């Protein structure tokens, strides 16, 4: 499974000169810095990185891009934990337990947890890639719309789990999010819900919407408080506590491993990268013996979300490296590096450039060490945010978010979305609707509709079609099983106890 000859060549490539290593730290720092600022997105990091690529050789370019993404994967967790503003859709799961921990003054531990989980997730993903690149890719290419549909349904069940105290309100928030996610041009070219605005043809911009829903809503609420962390003695940045958080990660090996494996698997699917953290969080919560602790600041929530998020990138790299087929944003950009160096993707890539493939994987493994160090330094600096008075923080974060959302597309779609969803988010919080459910719906809307539509189209309307898709059926059965199992296992008495909770 491992091409030893190519592996040796790769070690020689990496060990023989310092040049490939030159780009790792800048890449990580760019990825960290851009994504740690709420409202800034990957496209801005790319705007910095892409013009530099022609000046690098091919291996350097690939390593540079993977380093940038490695930094990005963790960077988004920083504002998620400190400010409840996920740096991107990939960090939404981290906010669920990260921000409560920060509010309780345990921000150091939370950031340490996220960093360690992110590093371990990446290591596991790339180890898998090293050993199983070809089989993973061959498997990945057989996954199509029906499989994606099952995974989306799985994501939708998360809405039911995030329902908060009132089931009907939680479900309504989720459905509302789903519908919002489908605004825009349909795949057949019909414009839905756009009021005739061209800017909405591509749908509601997700990052400003998420930032609005989370950030402004929370920040509006905090307007009456002085600091994020009320207790003055806990408002510190403490390296020891950060390290303690990192060590804590290893006390939950089950959650960690499950998150990493799940993330790698979901990352293979197109569009899977954004939802891997949510699915992992959902599964960790379902599997726990005390699920009600999730959402209040349970370390396992952070570990599950971050490890899956980090490993999902490795999954999508499999199809790029082994097959040369890009499946999404990050890998499409790597193709640019290919093009600039006159290399075509395609299955021949692994065959003809196996040494480069292995060199990228090996350097990614080594990058994790640098990420841990750079990330640690970053957390230390970023942690001082909790010392800043909220009345300074709120306007700064909001202004940054607005500027960032404008810079995204140079038009008002971003800022207006941000402001509108800020108000909607606040109202939702006020009336006890779980904002997280709406966000999950929003993220899943397009994905689910596309998968549902294409499955329908492929089947020609024939339900029996699903019987020809064993993988999809397997996922569906697993899903049904995972929902039914807690009820079957715990028996009737617990079930009645659960039903005491409020329905509306």
């Amino acid at each position: 499974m491992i091409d030893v000859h190519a592996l040796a060549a790769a070690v020689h490539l990496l060990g023989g000169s310092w040049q490939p290593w030159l780009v790792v730290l800048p890449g990580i720092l760019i990825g960290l810095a851009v994504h740690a600022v709420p409202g800034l997105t990957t496209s801005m990091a790319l705007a910095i990185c892409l013009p530099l690529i022609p000046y690098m050789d091919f291996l350097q370019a690939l390593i540079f891009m993977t380093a940038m993404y490695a930094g990005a994967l963790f960077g988004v967790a920083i504002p998620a934990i400190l400010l409840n503003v996920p740096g991107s859709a990939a960090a939404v799961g981290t906010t669920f337990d990260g921000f409560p921990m920060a509010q309780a003054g345990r921000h150091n531990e939370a950031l340490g947890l996220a960093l360690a989980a992110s590093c371990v997730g990446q290591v596991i993903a790339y180890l898998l890639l090293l050993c199983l690149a070809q089989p993973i890719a061959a498997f990945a290419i057989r996954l199509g719309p029906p499989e994606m549909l099952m995974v989306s349904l799985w994501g939708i069940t998360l809405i039911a789990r995030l329902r908060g105290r009132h089931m009907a309100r939680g479900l309504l928030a989720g459905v509302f999010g789903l519908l919002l996610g489908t605004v825009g041009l349909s795949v057949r070219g019909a414009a839905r819900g756009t009021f005739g605005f061209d800017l909405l043809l591509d749908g509601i911009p997700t990052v400003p919407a998420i930032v609005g829903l989370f950030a402004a809503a929370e920040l509006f609420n905090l307007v009456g408080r002085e600091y994020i962390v009320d207790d003055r003695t806990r408002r510190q940045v403490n390296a020891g506590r950060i390290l303690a958080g990192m060590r804590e990660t290893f006390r939950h090996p089950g959650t960690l491993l499950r998150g990493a494996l799940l993330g790698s698997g979901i990352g293979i699917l197109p569009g899977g990268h954004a939802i891997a953290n949510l699915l992992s969080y959902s599964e960790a919560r379902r599997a726990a013996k005390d699920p009600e602790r999730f959402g209040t600041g349970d370390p396992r929530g952070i570990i599950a979300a971050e490890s899956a998020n980090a490993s999902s990138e490795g999954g999508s790299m499999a199809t790029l490296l082994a097959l040369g087929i890009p499946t999404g944003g990050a890998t499409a950009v790597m193709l640019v590096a290919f093009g600039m160096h006159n290399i075509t993707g395609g299955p021949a890539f692994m065959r003809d450039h196996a040494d480069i493939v292995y060199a990228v994987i090996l350097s990614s493994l080594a990058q994790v060490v640098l990420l841990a160090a750079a990330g640690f330094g970053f957390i230390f600096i970023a942690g001082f945010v909790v010392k800043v008075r909220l009345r300074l923080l709120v306007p700064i974060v909001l202004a940054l978010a607005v500027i960032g959302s404008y810079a995204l597309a140079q038009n008002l779609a971003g800022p207006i979305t941000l402001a509108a969803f800020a108000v909607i988010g606040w109202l939702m919080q006020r009336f006890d609707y779980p904002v997280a459910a709406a966000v999950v719906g929003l993220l899943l809307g397009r994905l689910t509709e596309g998968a549902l539509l294409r499955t329908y189209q492929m089947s020609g309307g024939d339900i029996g079609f699903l019987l020809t898709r064993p993988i999809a059926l397997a996922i569906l059965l697993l899903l049904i099983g995972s929902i039914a199992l807690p009820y079957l296992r715990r028996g009737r008495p617990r079930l009645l106890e659960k039903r005491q909770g409020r329905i509306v």
Partner: protein
Amino acid sequence: MQRRQLLTAAAALAASHVVPAHAASWPRRPVTILVPFDVGGSADRLARGFAQYMPKYLSQPLTVVDRAGAGGLIGTTWFLQQPADGYTVMLTPATPFIPVNILVTHAHYTLDSFTFVNAQWVDYTILLVPKDRPWKTAAELIDAIRAAPGKISTGVDFGSVGHITTMALLDALGLGPDAVRIVTFDGAGAMRTALAGGQVDFNIGQAEGAAFISGFVRPLAVFLDHRVPDYDVPPINDVLKAYHVSVPLINGSVRTFVFPAAFKAKHPDDYATFVAAYRATLDDPAFQKWLHDNQMAGDWVGEERTAAIIRANYDGLEKYKNLIKP
């Protein structure tokens, strides 16, 4: 060598914001190439090639900006909102996307809003099937569709030439749109991945994109009036002779630089400066090699011929727009 290159990069980044004091004429500052599609796509990669090789002839750096969405509509609309001073130029597969924007997605511009500089890289469409499917010729596939209408599936990238050609082919053969299961994708990349994985039975799409998945698919016919050396398959109308029908051969993506019409009208000298720099870049042997290695073309056909090509494609697409309208 590498270290020097990286230092050069850093210097270039810094220098790009310093305007040389002696520059008296256009362009006096960097020029933006707007690509109304996603990063990593063919237009984007071509634009980055220009950003690498053209500054030498233009005396200013070029930055690539991507603004994807709605089949090019979002980026093109933004492009027209910029001042027509030549500092923003668009590089796009002008057809079929601009005609589709106008005819199907109700864009607010018309063909006359633009000046199309040069149809540099024209692609053609090709019929592909996944390797594990049984059909070895286009005729076998057509017979299979006729024998079992509604069972065979095809993937289409909505609004692309491949989509329109697929519908035109069915129409010519007298098969209704329900004769095949049409699976619509959100872009050519997603569709190609699905084709490579055998999720759909056949696809008519861009030939240059097919190179990525060549190991997974088998070509059956090309939509040209002649054979090509890259694929040993017959032209489609040769195959269709046996069925006594033919299909119109619409160009694949025609990539060209585009300016708003007002730019050439108001600043004809600046326009000429750009065209001269552009031609010099095309003539640069290093750039030609780059194009060749990336399997892109660098032909010069001139503005008039380009306008004619685009107009012809527009008319052809107008005839068939009803086949794909929602």
